[in-house]
């Protein structure tokens, strides 16, 4: 490199414009304050719609964070959910029409046609959730985050608190994290909590007897340990272990399980019953890699196991293609598979219900496989704002399991492993202020 006279002059001019700024003020007059635009707002809208007129939901979200400077961040969020539609009530399909009492009581009933999966179509709910957080550095390389959250819907209230500590080591190439969270939930079932495994009367709701009651609660404690390691300049690996302990009322007061004869005819329905203790373990590994100095490949695997006998595997893959400076396209694929809980029964054979402590026909505790495909498109605007829109399609395939052997032949023509599908559209806009 030769520095010719012209370049020398350019250097002198550039240096002069850097230093020769008129009016040199003392330091105190221009102490760097908190960032110019300390607020960051994340706004979003999520639309969820299951196939065949089942559950649909609209969920607007607003999150705001305020940068206090010095890496201290105050945040607050608000979510509003509106759900409606029909969801499986746990009973098995039958060759005849079936009538169930509505959880709203008052002698109201709903009827499921022969050969159909019983759905409770009285399902309608609105939920409001809010959270508050504060994150601050404890030292040059460690941070603490504290949070509070609460949510409310007409029959359910939840409060939670959490703390998360992270420590950077090895020149920020390694980050260790530990977190703990507590949650208290209270459910006030419409018409009172039914006594577990009691008969659902064709006309009446649950009873307010000793076992039942108007309000039930549960406690949850979650512990999380994690490590994030930068592997090289292009990739990082994250490993997490989480332990969840819950105790209290974990039964779904609106779900039943059918008791059937050899012809798959329902004799009666029992309100479901779940253990009041549950221990969950999850292991999570995520690998992120920058590709072509531009894109990000993300691969993760999660293994879940709990004391109810559910084992689940989740595999996720996404590729963020930053095809121009401002735009990106991100296809993603997620695979999920779980086996049935120990006390899951598609239906109970007559007499099998005697002496049972726990039983549920909730398909969410049954065996199924889910596949989600998604595509996100986003733009980073010149002014620092960004937006994205994501469309996902979820397909769930049930696996027949825990069908009473004596009635297996009679169920052969009925939907014992119904598929479910859902479309999820979400939009987000992020801006600083």
């Amino acid at each position: 490199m030769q520095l010719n006279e012209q370049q020398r002059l350019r250097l002198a001019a550039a240096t002069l414009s850097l230093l020769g700024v008129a009016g040199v003020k003392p330091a105190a007059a221009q102490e760097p304050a908190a960032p110019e635009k300390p607020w960051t707002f994340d706004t979003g809208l999520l639309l969820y719609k299951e196939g065949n007129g089942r559950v649909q939901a609209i969920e607007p979200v607003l999150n705001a964070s305020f940068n206090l400077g010095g890496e201290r961040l105050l945040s607050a969020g608000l979510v509003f959910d509106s759900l409606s539609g029909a969801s499986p009530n746990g009973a098995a399909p039958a060759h005849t029409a079936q009538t169930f009492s509505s959880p709203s009581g008052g002698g109201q009933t709903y009827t499921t046609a022969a050969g159909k999966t019983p759905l409770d179509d009285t399902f309608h709910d609105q939920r409001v959730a809010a959270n508050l957080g504060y994150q601050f550095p404890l030292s040059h390389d460690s941070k603490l985050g504290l949070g509070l959250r609460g949510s409310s819907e007409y029959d359910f209230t939840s409060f939670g608190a959490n703390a998360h500590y992270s420590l950077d080591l090895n020149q920020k190439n390694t980050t260790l994290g530990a977190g703990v969270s507590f949650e208290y939930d209270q459910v006030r079932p419409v018409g009172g909590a039914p006594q577990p495994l009691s008969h659902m009367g064709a006309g009446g709701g649950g009873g307010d007897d000793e076992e039942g009651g108007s309000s039930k609660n549960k406690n949850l404690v979650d512990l999380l340990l994690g490590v994030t390691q930068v592997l090289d300049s292009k990739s990082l690996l994250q490993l997490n272990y989480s332990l969840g302990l819950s105790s209290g009322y974990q039964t779904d007061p609106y779900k039943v399980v059918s008791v059937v004869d050899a012809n798959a005819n329902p004799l009666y329905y029992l309100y479901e019953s779940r253990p009041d203790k549950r221990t969950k373990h999850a292991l999570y590994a995520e690998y992120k890699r920058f590709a072509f100095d531009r894109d990000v490949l993300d691969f993760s695997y999660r293994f879940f196991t709990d004391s109810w006998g559910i084992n689940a595997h989740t595999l996720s893959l996404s590729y963020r293609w930053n095809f121009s400076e401002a735009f990106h396209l991100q296809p993603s694929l997620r695979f999920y598979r779980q086996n049935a809980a120990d006390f899951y029964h598609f239906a109970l054979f007559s007499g099998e219900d005697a002496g049972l402590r726990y039983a549920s026909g909730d398909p969410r505790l049954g065996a199924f496989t889910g596949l989600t495909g998604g595509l996100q498109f986003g733009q980073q605007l010149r002014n620092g704002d960004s937006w994205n829109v994501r469309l996902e399609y979820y397909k769930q395939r049930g696996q027949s399991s825990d069908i009473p052997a004596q009635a297996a032949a009679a169920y052969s023509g009925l939907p014992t492993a119904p598929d479910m599908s859902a479309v999820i559209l979400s939009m987000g806009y992020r801006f600083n202020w």
Partner: protein
Amino acid sequence: MNETRSVRIEPGGDGFVARFTAMASPCEVLVDGADRTELRRLGELAAAEVWRIEQHWSRYLPGNIVDRINRAQGAAITVDAETARFLDYAQQLHELSEGLFDVTSGVLRRAWRFDGSDRVPTPSQIEALLPLVGWQKLHWQSPQLQMPAGMEIDFGGIGKEYAVDRACALLAAQTSHAVLVNCGGDLAASGPRAQGQDWRVGIDSGLGASSSLIRLRQGGVATSGDAHRFLLKDGQRYPHILNPRTGWPVPGGPRSVTVAGSSCTEAGVLSTLAMLQGEQAEHFLQQFSGDFQVIW
């Protein structure tokens, strides 16, 4: 950043000197003809300014602008006016030097540890880091900077010289006496001393006895190269100034280059560029009419 924040007035030179520590260097302020009270006032002003810039641009201080830029993960960051001027400057230097001066080259330090040992990184280690170096990969449109995730900026290469110039200009506006600010051999003088005398400053090149005396009337002096920061392997000396285009130091260059310029910042740029010329360092400096001293 565990430096004690104090300004001491000590005997030195022909009278008194205000001393403080900043940017890991001993700093001193000389005010020609000022009494102790004025020297203390000006010394504290200079120290406050250098400490302010140190905090503002330190890459070790969580939450400051450099930290926010380096953690933005590809998001655009709006920077303050002073940082914007500095980024404008960095952009011009990058152009002017054909990429030899690059504020994104700091990531190379992950592979290079200049601790006097023989731990020279492997070519593949450097190869892996080079995609994260290059000012041209940034999108800078004042006051917004967008940097690809994984890259880092670092004003360490020229921040100290800038702070010295700022402090000197600040004091010059506050007193009629001539002022000299010196931080670890990077220095700036507001004008000649009384009766037109030169400032005379000893520059410790870190090479033992060969401490040299620099004469300066006005402007700045900066030194690049450091006797204590190098690697030595198979008889080959690797100085700590890296060529951002290759990720490697330029071999065969001088141990230290001291250059005078119209400001400390300009002198710093020239001395850094000279180090990157390797064997051609002296030839490079001869192209223009500035004082310089090259220690091989």
